[in-house]
């Protein structure tokens, strides 16, 4: 089994040509799950039987000479906030425990059509609210590189699944950094596409104007491949951009010669010195590869965290109003409907979700709307304007993904502001609606991985993947 391919691209090529079977590839990943899942806890649900049946169908199709898709036989893990018809979708919340959606998310349909094989649904911070997976109602996921540390969040299970070899690729969702930050902490590639590039139909909503689905992978090329499969217009999402999926794989090897890469001179401080050292190394590597490094300023991003922690909870308080014990999920016993609502929500939501519902409800309540939500939306505009100005000078901007490497369990969970600071570099792209991704780039403190974030303007995935490919190549030569 040692000779089996490991990347999604190699697996799909080998399965399609019949040199290996989807079943062999799947069994290798299921064996990895059997060996380490008890320690890592990446999954809320493992769908081994359905996966074996799916793999057998693909192998039969290959044997019959039928066409198979671009991800034929590629083991895939899905964040447990994406709807899978007839298969439990919990958002790691007691309020949705046991819920079986009556439909598939668009991304699930597209991945299945491409031949990807779902091995399970991954753990997350409840309703994607958190940066460590410690807010999961079903217990935290552990970082496969160091089990005493968090994998990041909220898509911590999906990042850990790829880092541990439980699946070749996975999907997460990113509202303020929930793909990029765990990718950085687990040493894998994570992509948040442009808002609207990937359909959100069937993604359980957290903050609808910020949420975006994207992949985790071990290589930049695999991340490009999965993004191509899931991107493109979808009638079921009214915010879906009416354009076909871009060709990203061809961008990965193009290099960065004559590209202009931005260095943010007024970047918020607080990152670990070893992380900032890797950022310097990244600029050096890009310059050596022929890019021009240009200083830019983003004066309003110092307010991004504050604006985000009003806008995201406000949207969440509205989106999570639907969990009322009427149509799905938990219902607490009560003789009257209002008592039922209050008791159901008290029993079903965890502490962080309650905190954000309260904050959002407060920010939207009569008398406070203009003072908080209205102002936060104006700050959002200032941040988008800053980026627009910067992108007249540069093609892409790089920063650290996370200010720190993977931290120990319990370090931040009692202090909401300390946890929120994990997202200081990732939030601005969500507010602007721009694409951003994290690429592993050497190690920092405790020899743990550091991620470099690449940001680009709306629909700037091609330049973003060019820079990502260059950083991935340069990372191989790092000390």
């Amino acid at each position, binding site marked *: 089994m040692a000779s089996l391919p490991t990347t999604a691209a190699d697996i799909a090529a080998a399965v399609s040509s019949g040199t290996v079977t989807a079943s062999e590839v799947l069994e290798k990943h299921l064996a990895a799950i059997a060996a380490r899942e008890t320690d890592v806890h990446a999954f809320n649900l493992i769908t081994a039987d359905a996966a074996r049946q799916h793999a057998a169908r693909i192998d039969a199709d290959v044997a019959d000479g039928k066409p198979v898709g671009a991800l034929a036989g590629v083991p895939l893990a899905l964040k447990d906030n994406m709807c899978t018809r007839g298969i439990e979708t919990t958002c790691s919340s007691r309020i949705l425990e046991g819920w079986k959606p009556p439909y598939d998310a668009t991304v699930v349909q597209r991945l299945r059509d491409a031949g990807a094989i779902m091995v399970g649904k991954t753990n997350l911070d409840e309703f994607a609210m958190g940066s460590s997976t410690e807010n999961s109602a079903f217990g935290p996921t552990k970082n496969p590189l160091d089990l005493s540390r968090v994998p990041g969040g909220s898509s911590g299970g999906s990042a850990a699944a790829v880092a541990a070899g439980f699946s070749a690729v996975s999907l997460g969702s990113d509202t303020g950094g929930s793909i990029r930050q765990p990718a950085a902490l687990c040493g894998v590639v994570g992509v948040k596409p442009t808002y609207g590039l990937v359909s959100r139909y069937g993604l359980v909503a957290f903050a609808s104007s910020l949420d975006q689905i994207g992949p985790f992978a071990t290589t930049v090329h695999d991340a490009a491949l999965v993004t191509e499969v899931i991107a493109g217009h979808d009638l079921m999402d009214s915010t879906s*951009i009416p354009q076909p999926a871009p060709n990203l794989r061809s961008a990965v090897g193009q290099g960065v010669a004559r590209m202009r890469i931005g260095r943010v001179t007024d970047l918020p401080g607080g990152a670990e010195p070893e992380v900032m050292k890797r950022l310097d190394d990244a600029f050096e590597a890009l310059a050596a590869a022929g890019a021009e490094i240009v200083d830019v300023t983003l004066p309003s991003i110092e307010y991004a965290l504050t604006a985000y922690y009003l806008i995201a909870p406000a949207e969440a308080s509205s989106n999570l109003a639907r969990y009322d014990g009427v149509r799905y999920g938990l219902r607490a016993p009560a003789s009257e409907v209002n008592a039922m609502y209050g008791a159901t929500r*008290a029993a079903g939501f965890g502490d962080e979700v309650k905190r954000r519902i309260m*904050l959002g409800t407060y920010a939207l309540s009569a008398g406070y709307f203009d003072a908080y939500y209205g*102002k936060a939306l104006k700050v959002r505009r200032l941040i988008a304007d800053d980026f627009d100005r910067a992108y007249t000078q540069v093609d892409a901007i790089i920063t650290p993904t996370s200010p720190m490497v993977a931290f120990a369990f319990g370090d931040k969970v009692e202090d909401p502001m300390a946890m929120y600071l994990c997202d200081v570099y990732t939030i601005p792209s969500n507010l602007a609606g721009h694409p951003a991704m994290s690429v592993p780039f050497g190690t920092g403190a405790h020899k743990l991985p550091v991620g470099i974030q690449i940001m680009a303007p709306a629909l700037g995935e091609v330049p973003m993947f060019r820079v990502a490919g260059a950083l991935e190549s340069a990372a191989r030569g790092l000390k």
Partner: protein
Amino acid sequence: MTSPTSSSSISAADVIKVARLARLDIDDAQVEHFTEQLAKVLEHFTDVDALDLSDVQPMTQAYPLANVLRQDVEQPCLDRDEVLAAAPQAQDGRFRVPTINGEA
């Protein structure tokens, strides 16, 4: 009387009122806990209050699209039995809930 500014700090009474608006039962210990934690998060908003935002248009959409409509033709919809199977209580093809407004 001007509208409240964000510098006015959140009180326990505010927290109780907000919990009622959010249909979220909370006990006394949680009132204290949330009052303290929400105040801490809102404290950061004083930085934003110091900005002059009078000429700035609020940004409500990440990628502007308008009037997104589909063709007005029949489409398949979710299976009713499958949807109701997920409900805590269903009866006669409908969602069943406890008494509303004291009506039996």
